[in-house]
């Protein structure tokens, strides 16, 4: 086992454990904070796969943006911390069957797919290539996503706007 394997297992453990805490804890603010460690662990795994740009985007968008917004929402909502969150189990049998089928499908895909294995060449820099691809091959999708986000932004602003009396 080499050095990077150990780091990988540390990050994997962080991700899985914190994800488990997110769903099991009874305090909604704790859930949101555990999510921080989940996102961070996933970013670490991206770095180990040589996708540094994706990893940093993950931290910037999920930790810096979405998580903070989530926390704001949770904290500013009046008395949300006193709400009893139900973490008990209902509908055990259907849930077990459904998740069992999903698990089986995922494992089956993992086992039966013929993975292409190439000698691992870690790209030195991914940022430039991503930029080129986004503005050449995927420019339409990129622009459409930009417009989608703009629409969401304008919509949010117009909902939140206070009408002048």
């Amino acid at each position, binding site marked *: 086992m080499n050095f990077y394997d150990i780091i990988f297992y540390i990050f994997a453990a962080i991700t899985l454990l914190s994800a488990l805490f997110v769903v099991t804890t009874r305090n909604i603010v704790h859930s949101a904070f555990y999510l921080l460690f989940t996102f961070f662990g996933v970013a670490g795994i991206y770095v180990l796969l040589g996708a*540094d*740009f994706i990893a*940093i985007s993950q*931290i910037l968008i999920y930790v810096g943006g979405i998580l*903070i917004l989530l*926390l*704001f929402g949770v904290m500013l909502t009046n008395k949300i911390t006193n709400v009893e969150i139900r973490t008990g189990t209902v509908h055990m049998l259907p849930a077990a069957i459904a998740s069992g089928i999903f698990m089986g499908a995922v494992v089956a895909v993992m086992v039966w797919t013929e993975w292409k294995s190439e000698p691992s060449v870690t790209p030195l820099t991914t*940022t430039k290539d991503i930029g080129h691809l986004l503005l050449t091959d995927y420019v339409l999708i990129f622009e459409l996503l930009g417009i989608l986000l703009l629409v969401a932004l304008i919509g949010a602003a117009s909902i939140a706007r206070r009408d002048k009396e």
Partner: protein
Amino acid sequence: MYQFLYDLIGNEILAGLLVAVVPLTIILVFALFGIWLERKVSAHMQDRLGPMRTGWHGWLQTVADLMKMLQKEDIIATDADKTLYNIAPVLVFSGSFAAYAVIPFSSKLLGSEVEIGIFYVLAISSLVVAGILMAGWSANNKYSLLGAMRAVAQIISYEIPTALIVLSMVMLMGTLSLDKISQMQTSSFWNWNIFGGAVFGLSKFLLIPFMFIAALILFISTLAEVNRVPFDIPEAESELVAGYFTEYCGMKWGMFMLAEYGNMFAVSAIIVILFFGGYQSPIGYFGNSIGVQWLVPFEQGFWFIAKGLTLVFVQMWLRWTLPRLRVDQLMTVCWKYLIPYAFLNLIIIGIISLL
């Protein structure tokens, strides 16, 4: 640095840890003397002497304070959320410490030569934001929560002009790597980005005024991001006791202090790298002229720290000069002035760099 230590020791883990110790030492030493400097600067600006009794002009004062802080009892309020309360200072400090991983102190002393340097710094500072929210919420104190809310609203807003200026500089330089940006501004101060960069021509002269605007906007918005006066409403003493760390004491409070001073130097370092040539000397290297090559990295380290400390001094100077902004004024400055100007600047720099 890493390669050198790896050759010396031959162990990846040990070399990696040793590399991480270097910026930690720098932050600790800087925080100790930064706090002393802050007190002296404030004292002299107010026609006082400041700490005088511990060592020469009181230079050991912060060391003595640190000794006191380490011995203090660790008090946690009964109603505080203990887990989060204990994690929060660590998270805040690790966020500001992590930013040092990519800052090149000289051409030989840099932690990681990742290609995405500046992007990484912008992203990792979000850990600080999460830590501040955690501290404010877990203390279960209304002043703490208000301080945390203000801090986060402020940091998130001011990240936008910062990111826009960084974007325009990245567009001009064509790289995200802080080390490469420093290397491009070599040989004399005339090649620094604040004077239009190293390429001599018409565009250089056209760029100069917009570079000054960009540097100013970046300075203002990073000042707000580290919660310094005039943007210190998150910890406004006269309104909120101490803001998000009201309930903290002892070394946990000390970690917030360390993080603040660490952040002050980190943002100064970013401005220095983007606009003032990074570790490059303004007048050429003494080591090169007398033919002693190993002296050059040390000179670069000296220049980097000197430039960084100058900007830190300006931050302190402003703290003891300007009054605090009101919350609505703070948001007005960011959204109605800095962001449009930063956008305009981005477009103009883009057009000029196409010329």
